[in-house]
């Protein structure tokens, strides 16, 4: 059995930032904290690295942004989230933005620069000022590498290519995780005084997603199974500009730098949806506008819209948007210097997640969450571009600190080795059943059916009968999963087994998403019901909480924290 004081599950931005914070904070007797990271892929392979456009912080560095401040950042975030975000948490994020981004710069993060040498900032959707700090269109990549450099410098123990399969609770608190070494297939018990999850989003529930192969929401499922509620899971972001075919991300920076969206009639159709902000309307509004154009026959080939950058000129595209130029050339054979890029909405981000507070604390003592897998909630019903990278470094840091405070205040109790061993045997039995059972259902088929069900029925536009169809289908798939089998029995790097295990969690999370969506009879942010087109603050200004029961999710609700910004109609 392995032991660490703090075990961070997930080696992306939030996870590494949490580990660094725990390491920096002295433990009992002034000693370094024994903190380790456990990650399903090597940390630099994490999906944080695919973020492009930037990270929001009100430095007020840009021309015309001299009046920007954390309060304005907070307000834009509240409004962007259609008033579902907890305003006390949003204020914390906006206040911590400049210090946290500065800290990253001090660690060497190579941001692009203004002519005076300050961090460069660009306009982004739903923001009143150019507030998004960037490094060309590779901001996630440079931030991820910077944090990996810092964990390397501190020699923080990292278990690369290990996948957590159980979150273990005993005596009413979290005592560790069971994880599988992917290179050997061995299961191992990791006892820890505190566990932090930073396991990312749920993109792979959908057929059309910008997300990496690894974004299966499995971490959320582990928390859910351990009795921690998932919050606001029906709020799923669809990014307006994903590449046709692969749905790889084409950054909002493309529009921030001045790109236009055109329908097949050659109209800049955003004038009909957000006349003031045009292409820089928040993502939910822009994605719905595009889907409407496509659905009403004004798309190209009935599936896509064009993103035109040609008027920006070669020099600007090469300097500010080299990454998306490379993506566009290699995946659709279109050089944006010469031709418009074919794009469509695609699943991109999970506003919901493991219910936690600003310190990452969850309902389970000793268990913390941060980053996309968590729901603090700062994004409310729709996340603004540039706020996800910010969330990872602010709340990663605060979760690291929260876990430290927890272990420092903790009385030396029993070590729960017995419970850990029982959980280890259970996990071994689960793997054995998948591999050696006599099931007949083909798991990849179940997975494909889930992906298309979610994309077709719980997408940009939603309607009762359709979502109900998804709920029913997911339940049918859950039932079939029980008769599923992994055919390859080897232990070394068994991807079929990994995908088979993950599928169980994906189906449960899909059930939370679709059930939350069918019950919420209003339209708010990313959740748009064509049968309930208005926001309904009287009935629905509240967070959804999904609890795991043997019969499926039990839904409960909690009021939204409102501080300075009473809900008003959202117009752009």
């Amino acid at each position, binding site marked *: 059995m392995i032991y660490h004081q703090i075990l961070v599950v997930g080696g992306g931005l939030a996870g590494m930032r949490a580990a660094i914070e725990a390491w920096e904070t002295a433990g009992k007797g002034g000693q370094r904290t024994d903190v380790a990271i456990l990650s399903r*892929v*090597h940390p*630099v*392979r*994490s*999906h944080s*690295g*695919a973020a492009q456009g930037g990270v929001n912080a009100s*430095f007020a560095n840009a021309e015309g942004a001299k009046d920007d401040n954390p309060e304005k950042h907070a307000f834009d975030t509240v409004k962007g989230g259609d008033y579902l975000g907890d305003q006390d948490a949003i204020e914390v994020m906006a206040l911590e933005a*400049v210090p946290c*981004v*500065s800290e990253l*710069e*001090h*660690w*060497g993060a*190579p*941001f*692009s*620069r*203004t*002519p*005076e*040498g*300050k*961090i460069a900032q660009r306009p982004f959707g739903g923001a009143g000022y150019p507030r998004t700090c960037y*490094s*060309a269109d*590779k901001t996630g*990549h*440079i931030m991820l*590498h910077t944090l990996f*450099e810092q964990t*390397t*410098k501190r020699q923080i123990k990292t278990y690369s290519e290990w996948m957590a399969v159980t979150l273990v609770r005993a005596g009413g608190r979290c005592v560790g995780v069971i994880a599988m070494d992917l*290179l050997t297939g061995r299961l191992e018990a990791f006892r820890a005084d505190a566990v932090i999850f930073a396991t990312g989003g749920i993109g792979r529930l959908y057929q059309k997603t910008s997300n*990496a*192969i*690894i974004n299966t929401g499995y971490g959320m499922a582990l928390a859910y199974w351990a009795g921690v509620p998932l919050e606001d899971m029906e709020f799923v972001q669809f990014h307006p500009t994903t590449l046709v*075919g*692969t749905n*790889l*991300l084409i950054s909002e920076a493309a529009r921030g730098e001045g790109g236009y969206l055109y329908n097949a009639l050659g109209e800049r159709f955003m004038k009909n949806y957000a006349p003031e902000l045009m292409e820089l309307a928040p993502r939910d509004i822009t994605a719905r506008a595009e889907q409407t154009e496509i659905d009403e026959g004004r798309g190209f080939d009935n599936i896509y819209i064009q993103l035109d950058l040609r008027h920006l000129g070669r020099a600007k595209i090469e300097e500010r948007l080299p*990454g998306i130029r490379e*993506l566009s050339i*290699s*995946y*659709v054979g279109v050089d944006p210097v010469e031709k418009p890029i074919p794009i469509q909405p695609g699943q991109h981000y999970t506003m919901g997640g493991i219910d936690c507070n600003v310190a990452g604390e969850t309902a389970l003592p000793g268990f913390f969450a941060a980053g996309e897998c968590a729901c603090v909630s700062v994004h409310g019903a729709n996340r603004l571009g540039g706020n996800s990278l910010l969330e990872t470094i602010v709340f990663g840091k605060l979760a690291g600190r929260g876990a430290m405070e927890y272990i420092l205040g903790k009385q030396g109790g029993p070590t729960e080795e017995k419970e850990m061993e029982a959980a280890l045997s259970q996990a071994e039995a689960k793997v054995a059943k998948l591999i050696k059972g006599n099931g007949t259902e083909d798991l*990849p088929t179940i*997975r494909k059916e889930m992906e298309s069900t979610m994309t077709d029925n719980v997408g940009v536009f939603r309607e009762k009968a359709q979502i109900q169809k998804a709920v029913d289908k997911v339940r049918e798939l859950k039932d079939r999963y029980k008769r599923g089998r992994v*055919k*390859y029995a*080897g*232990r*070394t*790097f*068994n*991807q*079929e087994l990994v*995908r088979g295990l993950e599928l169980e969690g994906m189906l449960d999370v899909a059930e939370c998403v679709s059930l939350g969506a069918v019950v919420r009879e209003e339209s708010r942010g990313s959740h748009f019901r064509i049968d309930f087109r208005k926001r309904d603050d009287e009935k629905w200004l509240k967070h959804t909480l999904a609890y795991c029961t043997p019969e499926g999710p039990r839904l409960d609700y909690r009021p939204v924290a409102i501080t300075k910004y009473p809900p008003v109609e959202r117009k752009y």
Partner: protein
Amino acid sequence: MAPDTAIFKIQRFDPEVDKLSYFQSYTVRLRRGMTVLEGLFDILDQEDGSLAFRASCRGAVCGSDAMYINGALRLACNTAIAPLLPQDITISPLPYMRVIKDLVVDQDPFWAAYERIKPYLINPQTAPERERYQSAKDRKHIDEMLDCILCAACYASCPMTWSDEVWLGPAAILKAYRFNGDTRDKGQRERLKVLDNENGIWRCHTVFNCAEACPKNINVTWSIEALKRQAIINRLKFWRR
């Protein structure tokens, strides 16, 4: 008419059963714009669950899936199948690295080299409350090196890797230049101690394999040469004192 299938010939090795590696053929049904990585996933899901390969972002930014495809080091995710046809798609793992299983290689020596060059900003001065200033021109100087995704294609392409186990390799040296060339960094001397020896920069014979292999089109060799110049200037300064 474009063909509707392609033959994938994949080098297989399962340490639990095989003594030697061998090639296995699969027929992959093609879709428009299909990549080699998508083909590998189709094989995994539909035909052979035992196939092992690494993948994550599928957008050429995470560096998981560098492999040897039809005679060149490439990322499976941004290699389209169509231009390779009518040839078979022949795939082996990164050469000269220990194979763990199929296309998955042991990258520990690669990461060990990375750690040795002190791959982090060194600057003992107290940082200001907000950002340090850096001119746009100085920032631009390291632009190309920042694109590195640590996929190890260059490492596997280098003839020195094949013969010298303690050779740092192109990627680690590129990373060293990313810092030694950054005006905010004060660790040049420290890093040169690791670099300025026969297993460091001087082991490079400038055959440019790394530059050719790089899927991000980074001229890795240029950085190695720049560090050789830095090392010489550093030694001249030392003698003058």
